[in-house]
């Protein structure tokens, strides 16, 4: 589309980082609108991070507070890792969306409301006693009242569409306004609409018309005197794509099995927010991927263990409550010493908790939530794109050490998107797999590799290696059932030692900021973004602190203790009530460790971390 000339009387200003929040009813298409805005930011060279925020209910009653679905994006001309604390602009498609999101917008921020639906009935539904557009409720904000529904209807009046179809285009009108405000290129979205609705040309036309009408509306509106321009970010040279954590996890698992020349078997039972890993994997059957939608969480894990017993890579994915159900099966894999990858996309708990909200409160569960002494390897990706590499790591460790590995993702990074600089295939780690093919004398399934302590992975179907394994205590070497007291002690020691040996194969922990000093902020997994930005924010204020983010939770990187020893105080912010804190205090009793806890279903805001750090300095 040709670049349109700005209307008379308009001014262009440049901005460095902008946060936009789209909010509406679950049926208003806010996630889709946010995705389009994100794709465009990506293609225009900005760095970005997103925060989809939607209810667990598929369609809560229209216009109610629980039905509000939001999507926040920060896009910038510099490197960023968070979706922004508070929005510069809130697009509120109805009174409920406005009410739910008033705490998410900056003072003096702009609110664009769909005035058409601020009727008495919908105000009551959203719990407004009076119309907030008419009193001083919004006096701290710049409010732009746009009759979105009416304008959309007018723009589409000549098209042969049902009223409900017209109504559904209003998000594109709103998107058009935002595209003008931030001087966005519309081509990508136009192309996307053409492809998406290829079979329904009238819908294609309607959406494109609504988009353009919104753009033009903003261009001529006197209420929008300024258009902002955000330059390209100085990202490292390379090829990029937009990726969410769950997409990166799925692609990483496929890549790992490809590198290992193994069949990927993924057993899963649908559960929020892990289901789209199953969906993504199911699309890649041409890689030999076998997905199995099991009857329950236990079966999903059991089938994965069966696949691993068969000599392929068994994996399962779930979220908190599902992980509880898998515990016994994971323990079988620990006892049978078979590779198994368990993806746990953590969500708000306990019990069913808050399915669509994020949390990091399963760390102690994955480490200790099984009967007996059952150490397990645990890794945690730190950003959406990092899920790719950590998924490969999980598979590598599982195969090299013949052990289950838990990949601890979370609801936030699972659904959040960021630009991903694509790796060269040749640079990806190779995963070496060996299966014994013969045996001098009877096969001994519990002999061990001297370096990794892994037992041999003998595939059923291999002549001469017939053997029996199971959950009963095993005799060393032979693997026969044994209740011998000394042997039991030995085997438990060996399995623990094997997990500790993994530390030989993982990278050392790195520190951002001074290597020694007053304060180290130690995070793990998905909180990397806000912690990174809190450190740089403080640095810009002249306060130097350090930050390290753990990706390996069991075993820890070998240099963790010496790093911790270099600081007077260690602050451990977590989206739980102090789980890593408990581990650090146990493993490193001399360290002055303090916690920062939040279990509200949302990631940390940069400002709250900055304030907390200031308070402990």
């Amino acid at each position, binding site marked *: 589309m040709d670049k349109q000339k700005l209307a008379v009387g308009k001014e262009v200003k440049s901005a460095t980082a902008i946060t936009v929040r789209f909010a509406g009813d679950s049926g208003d298409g806010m996630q889709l609108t946010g995705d389009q805005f994100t794709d465009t930011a990506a293609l225009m060279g900005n760095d970005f991070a997103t925060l989809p925020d939607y209810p667990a209910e598929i369609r809560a009653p229209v216009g109610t507070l629980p039905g509000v679905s939001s999507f926040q994006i920060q896009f910038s001309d510099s490197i960023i890792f968070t979706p922004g604390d508070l929005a510069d602009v809130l697009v509120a498609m109805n009174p409920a969306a406005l009410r739910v999101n008033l705490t998410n917008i900056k003072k003096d921020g702009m609110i664009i409301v769909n005035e058409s639906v601020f009727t008495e009935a919908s105000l009551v539904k959203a719990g407004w006693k009076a119309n907030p557009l008419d009193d001083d409720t919004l006096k701290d904000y710049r409010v732009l009242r746009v009759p979105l529904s009416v304008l959309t209807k007018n723009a589409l009046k000549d098209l042969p569409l049902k009223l409900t179809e017209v109504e559904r285009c209003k998000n594109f009108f709103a998107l058009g306004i935002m595209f003008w405000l931030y001087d966005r290129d519309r081509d990508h979205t136009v192309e996307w609409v053409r492809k998406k609705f290829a079979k329904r040309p009238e819908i294609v036309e309607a959406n494109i018309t609504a988009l353009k009408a919104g753009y033009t509306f903003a261009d001529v509106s006197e209420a929008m005197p300024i258009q902002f321009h955000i330059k390209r970010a100085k990202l*490292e040279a390379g090829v990029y794509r937009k990726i969410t954590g769950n997409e990166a996890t799925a*692609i990483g698992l496929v*890549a790992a099995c490809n590198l290992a020349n193994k069949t990927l078997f993924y057993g899963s039972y649908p559960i929020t927010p892990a289901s789209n890993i199953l969906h993504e994997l199911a699309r890649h059957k041409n*890689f030999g991927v076998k997905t199995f939608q099991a009857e329950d969480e*236990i079966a999903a894990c059991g089938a994965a*263990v069966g696949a691993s017993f068969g000599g392929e890579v068994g994996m399962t994915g779930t979220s908190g409550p599902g992980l509880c159900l898998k515990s016994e099966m994971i323990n079988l894999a620990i006892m049978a010493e078979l590779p198994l990858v368990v993806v746990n996309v953590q969500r708000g708990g306990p019990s069913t908790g808050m399915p669509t909200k994020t949390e990091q409160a399963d760390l102690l569960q994955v480490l200790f939530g099984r009967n007996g002494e059952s150490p397990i390897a645990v890794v945690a990706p730190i950003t959406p794109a990092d899920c790719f590499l950590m998924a490969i790591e999980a598979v590598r460790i599982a195969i090299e050490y013949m052990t289950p590995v838990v990949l601890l993702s979370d609801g936030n990074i699972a659904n959040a998107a960021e630009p991903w600089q694509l790796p060269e295939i040749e640079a990806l780690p190779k995963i070496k797999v060996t299966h014994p093919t013969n045996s001098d004398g009877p096969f001994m399934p519990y002999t061990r590799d001297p370096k990794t302590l892994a037992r041999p992975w003998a595939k059923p179907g291999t*002549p001469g290696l017939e053997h029996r394994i199971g959950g009963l205590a095993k005799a060393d070497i032979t693997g026969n059932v044994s209740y011998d007291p000394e042997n039991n002690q030995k085997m438990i020691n060996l399995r623990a030692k094997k997990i500790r040996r993994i530390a030989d194969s993982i990278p050392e922990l790195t520190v951002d900021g001074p290597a020694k000093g007053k304060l180290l902020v130690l995070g793990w997994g998905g909180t990397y973004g806000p912690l990174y930005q809190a450190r740089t924010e403080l640095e810009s204020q002249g306060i130097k602190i350090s930050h390290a983010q753990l990706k390996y939770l069991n075993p820890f990187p070998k240099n963790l203790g010496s790093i911790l020893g270099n600081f007077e105080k260690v602050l451990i912010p977590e989206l739980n009530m102090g789980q890593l804190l408990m581990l650090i205090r146990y493993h490193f009793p001399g360290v002055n460790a303090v916690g920062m806890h939040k279990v509200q279903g949302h990631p940390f805001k940069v400002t709250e971390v900055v304030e907390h750090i200031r308070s402990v300095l």
Partner: protein
Amino acid sequence: MSSIDTKKIPFTKNDFVSGQEIRWCPGCGDYAILATMQRTLAKFDIKRENHVFISGIGCSSRFPYYMNTYGFHTVHGRAPTIASGLRCVNPDLSIWVITGDGDGLSIGGNHLLHCMRRNMNLNILLVNNRTYGLTKGQYSPTSEMGKVTKSSPMGSIDHPINALCVALASEATFVARTLDNDPIHMSETFKRAMDHKGTSFVEVYQNCNIFNDKAFVPVTGRDNRDDRMIYLEDGKPLIYGKEKNRGIRLVGMKPEIVDIDNQELDQLPVILMSHNEKTADPSYAYMLTQMDHPEMPVPFGVFRALERPTYDDLLNGQVKTAIKKLGPGDLKKLIHGDNTWTVN
């Protein structure tokens, strides 16, 4: 199940005996089942390394340790899940799931049902002794109402479940019953199960001589068996009795015993029900499962044997189709996805 190895290897029972010490109680019916299984495998051309036995928890679930094949003693009730995963990644193995009335019908009921409805190509042997043996004698899901055990001192108030009804309701394609004191019938049934492609479900009446001794004797005891058991034979009329003088006919929807002493032989197929394993309507096989002692003779043999595509074949078929349609997976394409941009 199709034969895997075409090169004839004459096996003997001993080829399938593992060196492990057997830990079942002396006199347990499991010994006969184990020996019969070992003898049955010797009749096939399938190499030892291509057999896998997978079990859950319980007395019968120790089975894999005693077979000189690949074996996996897994989690209570979950053997069908592990077997399903294995089957999905390896089409060449012959897989037996060994379970019991508690393991399969109680804690693992869900998996049993889903394995059968998917028609995974594997065999399930459910060893039914109507008690919890390994935990020392509590009532099981197949125990009769009123049964007095340590956990039911005033008598069980749990209505029992019929294993074959579960199999039929799950649309299993092969459903059979046999008994531990008839090795010939047992072996023939195991063989039929292995020859069948899809989930083969076999219930075996087994005596737990410690906690539920002689539970099946009223039906299968030497003195009574001819008059209280009926062997199903495909295409043949339902006849039983020491003198082969009784048959089953259908009156409305109900089976009924008829005296056939005075009937002409060629009239029998007209009067009596003829057994047809391939009856697609499950109500026929279901009706057979309802024949129980003391009102009716108890049927043994193959109740149902139908052909239906197996889950594993369909899964492998989808992989093949995807490769044909999209070409073999290209890692670079996968990583790049549909939309990329370049930063210089």
